[in-house]
């Protein structure tokens, strides 16, 4: 089975210095963000990671693609231990795991054209046929090729997020981390971007971790769901089962708090 596992995370711990409580001299105390996370992601899985603010969901995501270095525990990606790998050793691997960010306006360089934004990681990773690959990425996300010469501010929010997705899939990664990528969008473009992701997962066989605070979106997109609360895993299992019969009190609380667009659900 282990060759089917893309991520294997064991007892992952990560802390940040608590600068608000740093004494004048000496080291700042540490705040534990991740308190021993265990997680496995199989190839082709779409995993939802959900939790409130401060639950550690974004920190976990950033540790997975090694934008952050954990204190202890281990992260194995495609069987290789990347927990404490140096940046020079990580760089060639980065084309295998990519990220789509929450706010496309601030994660896309406003001074670069769409074409050069998507070409960025391709050039950095020494790909050949960069131009053809940029076109292909645009095709995949359903943007016309003439958008190559446009700038981010000329696009709508949904189109900008498509550019973010195109950049992430251009290097043909094994794994994509999507952190709250639809939370800034209107519901109509939200639905379009989610449909696009579903389609790309099918067509390109992507493995996806989808971080969100919105359980409705996770229910639609993900096969497995992990619920985090204050740096610990509350539940991690099949999405349908988790929604239909939540085991943890916190999961139930989260579900009850979502305002459903109907009048049948009444808040006591």
């Amino acid at each position, binding site marked *: 089975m282990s060759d089917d596992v893309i991520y294997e995370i064991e007892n992952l711990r990560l802390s940040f210095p608590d600068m608000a409580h740093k004494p004048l001299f000496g080291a700042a105390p540490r705040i534990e963000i991740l308190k021993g996370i265990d997680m496995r992601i199989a190839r082709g899985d779409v995993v939802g990671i959900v939790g409130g603010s401060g639950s550690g969901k974004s920190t976990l995501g950033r540790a997975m693609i090694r934008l952050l270095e954990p204190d202890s525990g281990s992260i194995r990606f495609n069987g290789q231990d990347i927990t404490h790998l140096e940046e020079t050793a990580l760089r060639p691997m980065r084309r295998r795991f990519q990220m789509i960010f929450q706010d496309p306006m601030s994660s896309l360089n406003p001074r670069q054209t769409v074409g050069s934004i998507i070409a960025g990681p391709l050039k950095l990773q020494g790909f050949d046929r960069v131009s053809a690959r940029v076109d292909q990425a645009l095709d995949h996300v359903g943007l016309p090729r003439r958008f190559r010469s446009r700038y981010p501010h000329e696009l709508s929010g949904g189109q900008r997020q498509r550019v973010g997705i195109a950049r992430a899939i251009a290097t043909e990664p094994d794994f994509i981390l999507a952190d709250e990528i639809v939370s800034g969008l209107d*519901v109509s473009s*939200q639905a379009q971007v989610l449909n696009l992701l579903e389609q790309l997962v099918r067509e390109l066989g992507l493995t996806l971790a989808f971080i969100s605070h919105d359980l409705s979106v996770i229910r639609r997109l993900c096969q497995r769901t992990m619920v985090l609360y204050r740096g610990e895993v509350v539940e991690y299992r099949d999405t349908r089962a988790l*929604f239909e019969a939540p085991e943890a009190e916190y999961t139930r609380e989260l579900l009850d*708090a979502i305002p*459903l*667009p109907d009048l049948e659900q009444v808040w006591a």
Partner: protein
Amino acid sequence: MSFLTIENLNARVGTAPILRDVSLSVEAGEVRGLVGESGAGKSMIGKAVLGTLPTAVEIESGRIVLDGEDLQALKPRDRRRVIGAKAALIPQDPLTALNPSRRVGPQITNRLVDILGWTRADAGHRAAELLDEVSIPDPERVMRAYPHELSGGMRQRILIASAFAAEPKLIIADEPTTALDVTVQKQILRLIRQMQARHGTALLFVTHDLGVVSKVCQSLTVLFGGMVLEDTRVEQFFARPGHPYSAALLAATPKYTDPDASLTPVPDAVIAGVEAEIEAHDRMHGHV
């Protein structure tokens, strides 16, 4: 009786119309949702009522009547006094709405002192009372705290208390829970509803979330491109939306209990239909 009536309000930026013949009213004790996607003009309507429109926006025609006073007919100075005494805002982002360098207490009481001419002591009492009413433990301590010392939910409670402080006739809540976690959002929405019901305030609730509308509003106005598409009761809306765009918006709204039927993109044909309506409207009113 209606605390807010907007009649045929037209506003533009340069030559571009941003509000097109908007009419709506909010009765005493009513919660009306103002719903639309970005660019629909929902926040603009709130700003027009509160007199906080960006300077580039010009009101062309129409009336805004707040508790019997026609705001457009008043001199700017009188208008500000009327708005300050009769209306209040619950803003979107509780962190930017509070001055980070000042303690919380004076930020609540200033309104009472400056606009209503209360004494500092009376205003202080009232603020403490209100903080208690919005379930803030130890109001005296919180009033001495700075905004950064409080959680997001706590800050939003303070702004709610502050909005109700002068017993306004109308409160405009502009996406008051978008910055909050769902569990906190639930508490805050309930609190707004409770406070509104207890004080009999008219509430105009600006939101993009139809889920939220179903939990707090009795009626709603659906906007697109600064134009009212539908004005209806929630029972009617959720049973049978009256405009194709409303129906599409409802189908696009995520619903975890029905994952396959929700999150349907708004069809291009629907958007094209609304845009045609807007064009027809502009042609009739002499815009290009």
